[in-house]
């Protein structure tokens, strides 16, 4: 167990964490803001990666390829949105249906189960190769940090607009939202599209970073994203109350998650078990607020409404 080995891996871990941070922010939008547990991401992350790689192969530049990946991600969100709003299928099942359908779609996009891209032949935005020994502006950590800040600024603005507020209201209380004239079905579809667009973008970055897109690359994406959201909220929630800071906190949560994962692997845990531990960690973190409520809340006597009118 050489600490140096762990440290050497850190720049890569940091980049990976930030890339997944974008997916985590997308998942935050559905899970927390829209109150919609969206499993589409277990397919759409791969869709984003596949579209990006295939576009690059076809000679498009990296920016266009990533925009296409984002757009493809948005389409997957649209599909889930239609399943849920137009066809009345419950949220989780809607996501699972899209996810399953995407397995075929992703195979069709890639033509086979995985596609490798050579960083020397294509001009990529991020890569494991760019995490050390390159100029700061080309360094993937820097690029990703800037990307996240940019993204947070845009989302901060968006959720302050009329449309963004309508989306938040829909997630918080959809009956009230409708009573205030908000088309909640539209809000849900829009939220799912934004979320999966970000997840697709994250997949596009991830496939560049690791140098390949793989049919299984999105497996468990929802759990990783939720882990990032939960860790981000647990660690930074105390200080980060502002919406923008909360999003930054989630990106940081994603980085922390990958640091923990790397550390566990470094300690000699069989990588095959990593998904198991990820699932357990998320399960426990999800249980904590429930346990707190059930076992650790002292019964309180509610005050009368005297001065509370």
């Amino acid at each position, binding site marked *: 167990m050489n600490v140096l080995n762990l440290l050497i891996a850190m720049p890569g871990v940091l980049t990976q964490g930030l890339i997944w941070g974008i997916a985590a922010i997308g998942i935050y939008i559905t899970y927390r803001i829209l109150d919609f547990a969206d499993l589409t991401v277990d397919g759409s992350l791969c869709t984003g990666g596949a579209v990006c790689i295939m576009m690059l192969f076809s000679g498009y530049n990296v920016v266009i390829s990533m925009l296409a990946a984002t757009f493809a991600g948005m389409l997957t969100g649209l599909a889930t949105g239609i399943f849920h709003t137009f066809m009345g299928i419950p949220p989780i099942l809607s996501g699972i249906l899209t996810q399953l359908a995407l397995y075929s779609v992703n195979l069709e996009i890639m033509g086979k189960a995985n596609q490798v891209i050579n960083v020397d032949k294509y001009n990529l935005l991020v890569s494991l190769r760019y995490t050390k020994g390159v100029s700061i502006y080309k360094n993937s950590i820097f690029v990703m940090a800037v990307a996240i800040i940019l993204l947070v600024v845009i989302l901060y603005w*968006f959720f*302050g*607009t*009329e*449309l*963004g*507020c*309508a989306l*938040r*209201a829909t997630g*918080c*209380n959809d*009956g*009230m*939202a*409708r*009573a*205030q*004239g*908000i*088309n*909640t079905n539209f809000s849900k579809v829009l939220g799912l599209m934004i979320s999966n667009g970000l997840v697709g973008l994250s997949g596009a970055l991830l496939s560049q970073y690791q140098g390949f897109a793989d049919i299984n690359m999105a497996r468990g994406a929802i759990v990783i994203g939720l882990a990032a959201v939960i860790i981000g909220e647990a660690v930074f929630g105390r200080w980060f109350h502002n919406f923008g800071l909360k999003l930054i906190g989630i990106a940081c949560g994603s980085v922390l998650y990958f640091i923990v994962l790397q550390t566990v692997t470094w300690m000699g845990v069989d990588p095959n078990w990593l998904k198991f531990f990820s699932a357990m960690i998320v399960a426990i973190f999800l249980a904590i607020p429930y346990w707190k409520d059930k076992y650790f809340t002292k019964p309180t006597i509610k005050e*009368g*409404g*005297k001065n*509370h*009118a």
Partner: protein
Amino acid sequence: MLELRNVTKVFNPGTVNEKIALDNFSMTLEDGEFVTVIGGNGAGKSTMMNAIAGVWPVDAGQILIDGEDVTKLSEHKRAKYLGRVFQDPMMGTAATMGIEENLALAKRRGYGRTLRAGITKKEREDYRQRLAILGLGLEDRLTTKVGLLSGGQRQALTLLMATLQKPKLLLLDEHTAALDPKTAAKVLEITEYIVNKDHLTTLMITHNMKDAIVHGNRLIMLMDGRIILDIRGEEKKKLTVEDLLHKFGEASGEEFTSDKAILG
């Protein structure tokens, strides 16, 4: 202002739980009328409200608001004509959003929502003044999350939200039922003030007969999805709880047995 023509709504049709909630229900509300609605459990009061608000489609009949047929209009589209306050204080507001954000949501009812700012500085000043009129000290807590407010505060806020854009019709669905008597009185006082100030056509469900008599200029009583009593003008002014109980017995052929309705 509002017209219901032969509206019928059946819940769980074809099952043992079949319930005719509205039975060929017709009613017309004139402009500026303040109608109080009473009736026992399952009489169809809330069903009538939800039918007007478009929570679900009705089985038969027509609903017209200010002459426009809204029967086929979805809930969020009808919202442009309606201000609604619910029985449960949690239902009318978005708990995780601030007071001013909730008001700003209501301010945009009936208008398209675009990428313009969700709330402007000018609006904030307006909200501050309107909140000050409520006398609940909310004007200094514009950014407070609504989830932190008491039930009474939330109902008062919901009332303000419902009337921020002057609605063609104000629907109050037992909006004081979940409050303690003193808070309920305060919310009713605010209701009376807002309705009079803006001359709002109002439909108010209440389980309290006294409130139903004191407030408004017309009273209807529902039973089994039909109107069994409709009193207005001078006749309503002279009405007492005893009269109501008597009329209820007359109209329905049975005693009005709900203690809550008598004592509430």
